[in-house]
């Protein structure tokens, strides 16, 4: 038998039907649902008189529109947001899918809740009407975002019409230097490949740096595979994965656990398997990074300067000019001279417990800069509870951070957490697009430790100076 990649193995285990032209029906093991991309899909089912094919494999949670202030029990003020969340409440009940409503402590960002509850397991196919579904690839699950028509298709048939992508290997060798985190790794990869570099591929991340990473770090890396254009990112499961999964509410137990483990241990890329594209980065070469522009590929080490548009070629010259103007920067300006108004720590990229611990390490016993607006939004109610138990919340509040309830918050500003025009934010989220965090808002993507450093000094800062 010819050697297979991890992607080949998971793909082969899920093809329910293959047409002559290679178009497949891929069976979906877990379908995650949130309130923004699902109402039209449920409505479509209703109008066609269709049911959800596998409600026990469908998990819904509201996250995008949910307010994160402590008074959210009083309800959602914005009428459209409220209607969207209420539609999910109703649809979850009517169609009988698993549901974590706003007032459930397990509620949170869908990509944090899925792994936390043990819904996401190695070797699965996972989809969600959300591009950051790539996160679940950290478990060696084939996970990707889909549109609303596809959400309806999966609800109705538990399958997706797909053609196989190409295989790409991203290897990160060696070790990371102090102060360099999973977020820096994933941004550095996008900086190297570009936002379209992964288009048409499923990426497998591997190498010593990935092996040494926690599950939280691996989720951060895979989360941004979509920002590199890839359909999905994958990491082969290992002892770190099994340790994380074991004992979670929906993880297999007893004899089933042993059977699952036996299969999961076969989920790796065989020696000699073919990759269509290979990218290698040395861990030692990766610095703490920030984005200067309005595309996640606009990445530079914090020690760098704002580039000159003329340094680029082709369509990127005009795009860089537009970005620099939008961001209110000057070519040649030192990145560490950029002053920050707001710090946002949270999102499906960096809203997990390890991220919060990294922030606490930097800010413990210190105060954020006067006038700085800084918020920490845990990825789920359970992350929040754990941070309180570990004493992190006290550190944050003593330093001057707002300590919020779980949700997508300012990552995309569909809820009350938004930037004002011209407001500049160091954010641990995943997109620095124009207007992403609020109309004319300016976003610099960074790691949690770097965001914490910026909160203390009031400008983009090399966290290594503070640790």
């Amino acid at each position, binding site marked *: 038998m010819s050697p297979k990649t991890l992607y080949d193995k998971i793909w082969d*285990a899920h093809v*329910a*039907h293959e047409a002559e*032209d290679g*178009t497949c*029906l891929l*069976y979906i093991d877990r379908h995650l649902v949130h309130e*923004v*991309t699902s109402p*039209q899909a449920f*409505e479509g089912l209703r109008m066609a008189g269709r049911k959800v094919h596998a409600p026990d494999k469908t998990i819904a949670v509201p996250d995008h529109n949910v307010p994160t202030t402590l008074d959210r029990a009083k309800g959602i003020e914005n009428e459209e*947001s409220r*209607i*969207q969340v209420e*539609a999910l409440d109703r649809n979850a009940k009517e169609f009988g899918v698993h549901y974590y409503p706003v007032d459930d402590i397990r509620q949170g960002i869908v990509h944090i809740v899925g792994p936390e509850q043990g819904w996401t*397991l190695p070797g*699965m196919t996972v989809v969600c*009407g*959300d*591009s950051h579904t790539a996160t679940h690839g950290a478990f060696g699950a084939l996970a*990707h*975002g*889909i*549109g609303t*028509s*596809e959400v309806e*298709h999966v609800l*109705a*048939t*538990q399958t997706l*019409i797909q*053609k196989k992508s190409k295989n790409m290997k991203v290897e990160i060798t060696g070790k990371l230097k102090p102060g360099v985190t999973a977020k820096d790794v994933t941004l550095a990869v996008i900086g190297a490949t570009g*936002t*379209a570099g992964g*288009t*048409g591929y499923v990426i497998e991340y591997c190498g010593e740096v990935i092996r040494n990473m926690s599950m939280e770090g691996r989720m951060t890396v895979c989360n941004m595979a*979509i920002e590199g*254009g890839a*359909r999905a990112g994958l990491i082969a499961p290992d002892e770190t994965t099994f340790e994380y999964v074991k004992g979670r509410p929906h993880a*297999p137990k007893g004899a*089933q*656990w042993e*059977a*699952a483990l036996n299969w999961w241990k076969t989920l790796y890329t065989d020696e000699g398997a073919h990759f269509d594209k290979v990218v290698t980065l040395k861990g030692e070469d990766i610095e703490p990074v920030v984005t200067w522009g309005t*595309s996640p590929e606009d990445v530079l080490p914090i020690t760098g300067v704002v580039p000159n548009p003329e340094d680029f070629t*082709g*369509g*990127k010259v*005009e*795009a860089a000019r*537009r970005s620099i103007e939008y961001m209110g920067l000057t070519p040649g300006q030192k990145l560490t001279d950029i002053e920050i108004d707001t710090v946002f720590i949270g999102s499906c990229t960096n809203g997990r417990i390890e991220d919060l611990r990294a922030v606490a390490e930097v800010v413990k016993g210190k105060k954020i800069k006067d006038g700085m607006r800084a918020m920490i939004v845990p990825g789920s109610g359970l992350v929040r509870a754990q941070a309180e138990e570990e004493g992190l919340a006290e550190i944050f509040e003593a330093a001057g951070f707002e300590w919020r309830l779980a949700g997508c918050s300012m990552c*995309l*500003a*569909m809820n009350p957490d938004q930037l004002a025009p011209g407001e500049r934010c160091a954010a641990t989220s995943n*997109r620095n*697009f*124009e*207007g*992403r965090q609020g*109309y004319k808002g300016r976003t610099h993507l960074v790691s949690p430790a770097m965001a914490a450093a910026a909160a203390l000094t009031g400008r983009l800062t090399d966290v290594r100076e503070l640790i």
Partner: protein
Amino acid sequence: MEKFQKLHGIAAPMPLVNIDTDMIIPKVFLKSIQRTGFGKHLFDEMRYNRDGTEIEDFVLNKPQYRNAEILIAGDNFGCGSSREHAPWAIADFGIKCIVSTSFADIFFNNSFKNGILPIVLPQEQVDILMADAEKGANARMTVDLEAQEITTSDGVVITFDVDPFKKHCLLNGLDDIGLTMEKADAIKTFEEQASQARPWV
């Protein structure tokens, strides 16, 4: 779904690279629970001032492009989120075909589900179409899906590739779910085998 067969219309040039889904339809408009009515918000932040007046030099506000049905765009069109509101807004505006050197994967798939034909061409050919689009409203191009050909206003013919299954669905306006449900037996068989092999799922 509406059929796409042959289109003869105005093409608008948008050479900017990395046009993302937040540009196409900002998140403030994602709160609707309907599929319709997004066209007036297409490219909202590029198209309108905050007071609702139009930004004159935005391409779709120029008189010659207000009725564009084709978009010739820079690399990596549609990158970003999975929001199908992006193709809903594009279709609702009246654009039925987009040409670029590359598209983001999810956007590309979403387009086909909404009667929009995304066409990938090499840079040199996109350049030819971009130049043709820049001529304005008198320069109409023809996109023939059956023949897989684009004809510029001055008669240059460019052929393109399209996935045969997606082509079939677009030409006939077919609903994916109905087609998949015809394979219910295969899905059932798969489920029986999978629940034996991986009962923990």
